[in-house]
């Protein structure tokens, strides 16, 4: 059976330009990246800080325009603007969750639900459903600025599912969390994949997380993809038994 491609990147490059007075500084973030992501897989972008993982995710979600290359999402080529029909089918969860400080958990979910065009009974059901799934009942009426980091993380995951997306982008979802909460978040991610038939693109620099969750892994370093494959394929090609060794081997080739 052929796998359906939901995201395709062709020769994507991105360089950031910052200027201080008349001096311009250029930082190469992504260089000539091409990859395909299949339906209902957890595709993990693995690499150190500053390797270009987040830039790549933001290019996919349409918040950064690449300098070169083409992006296809669900068969549609992205141009200057991401079409509404595509935006409706995607969502994103960041490792550094931020929401309006004075809104409660319930209000935030309701607000985002409305932005995705959900209303009435369906909206209340969706809000209650994700409050329950992410065990946020106790915090439903607590303001965002009063939540702990772990609870904020669960909230941003709940928000990223409010529209039941076909494609979910998770940017370092366990960043800075204690092991207990991280385990729970990873369980949630697995559950989302299996129950919602969602395609998940996950960035992380935790090798263990990738080993536990990923169907396929892409190693990224200095804005270029070093290798793409299933964990077994990567072990085989690098003659290693863990992702950390495999990455080090590839990065120093």
């Amino acid at each position, binding site marked *: 059976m052929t796998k359906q491609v939901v995201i395709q990147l062709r020769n994507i490059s991105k360089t950031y330009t910052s200027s201080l007075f008349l001096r311009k500084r250029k930082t190469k973030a992504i260089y000539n990246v091409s990859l395909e992501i299949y339906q209902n897989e957890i595709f993990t972008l693995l690499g150190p800080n500053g390797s270009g993982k987040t830039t790549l995710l933001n290019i996919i979600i349409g*918040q950064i325009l690449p300098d070169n290359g083409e992006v296809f999402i669900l068969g549609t080529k992205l141009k200057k603007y991401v079409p509404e029909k595509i935006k409706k089918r995607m969502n994103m969860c960041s490792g550094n969750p*931020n929401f309006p400080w004075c809104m409660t958990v319930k209000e935030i979910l309701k607000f985002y639900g409305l*932005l995705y065009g959900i209303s009435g009974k369906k909206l209340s059901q969706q809000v209650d459903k994700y409050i329950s799934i992410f065990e946020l009942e106790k915090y439903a009426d607590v303001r965002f600025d009063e939540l702990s980091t772990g609870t904020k993380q669960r909230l941003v995951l709940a928000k990223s599912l409010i529209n039941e997306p076909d494609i979910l982008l998770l940017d370092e979802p366990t960043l800075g969390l204690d092991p207990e909460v991280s385990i729970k978040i990873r369980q949630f991610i697995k559950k989302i994949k299996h129950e919602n038939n969602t395609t998940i693109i996950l960035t992380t620099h935790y090798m263990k997380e990738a080993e536990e969750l990923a169907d396929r892994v892409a190693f990224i370093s200095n804005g270029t993809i070093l290798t793409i494959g299933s964990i077994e394929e990567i072990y085989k090609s690098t003659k290693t038994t863990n992702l950390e060794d495999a990455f080090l081997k590839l990065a120093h080739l």
Partner: protein
Amino acid sequence: MKKEFLKIFAYIYRNYIFAIRNIFTFFDILFWPVIGILSIGMMSTFLQLDKQLLSFLLTGTITSGVLQVTQLEVSYGLLYEIWSKSIKQIFITPTEHYHYIFGSWIVGTIRGFIVFLLLSIISHYLFGFCLPKINYVIVSLLGIFLTGLILGMFVNFFILLYGQKIDILAWSVSILTMLISGIYYPVSILPKWLIRISEFIPLTYFLEYFRKGYGFEENFRYGLLKGFVLCIVYSFILFYLINLAYNHTRKTGTVIRLSE
């Protein structure tokens, strides 16, 4: 159509929550406008101004309060997300700039109307100020609300380009505009080059129309028409510029930095 309204309603809902939970939003509508009307009213009493001149000054003060509150709310539409560092979360949703602009503007007009009522009542009881005929009030208020929309969008354009570091613009742009539009004086006393500039500001015409209700002569022909046409033209230009600014932030990566 329903979905479009829902998205606008989402921002009305968010701005409403901010308005009832933050002390600074109460100050916006209660403190500064009331301080303004009391100080101008008492100064007028001290100077023993006649009823017509008193009306001239107090219409300026009321306009100032209503305009600033409306414009601020439109700017808050973007600033709330910038201050919360959640702007990226908003831009990945299937919404457009006009959704948060119109949603915030609707809340702004409600807050502006509250300011208008409050200041009119205070100035009536303390200084004997009376509003002109209803048609002058309705048309002027509509014009002031539209000017608030345009100034708010103007601020949003710069905030998208330069981020939080220029949020001070949100509190200064309407004051500068009022200065040129003849808030406490007729524009005819301004230097010629400033009068030229004031002709391009819709508020100039709406203030004049408000004061026409008290028998003051207008300085410009077809003022009201010019005011509304300018509002429409500026709003189209600003929507275009805001889209350009947003694309610029996507090119430079600013939209991501604003969320970190």
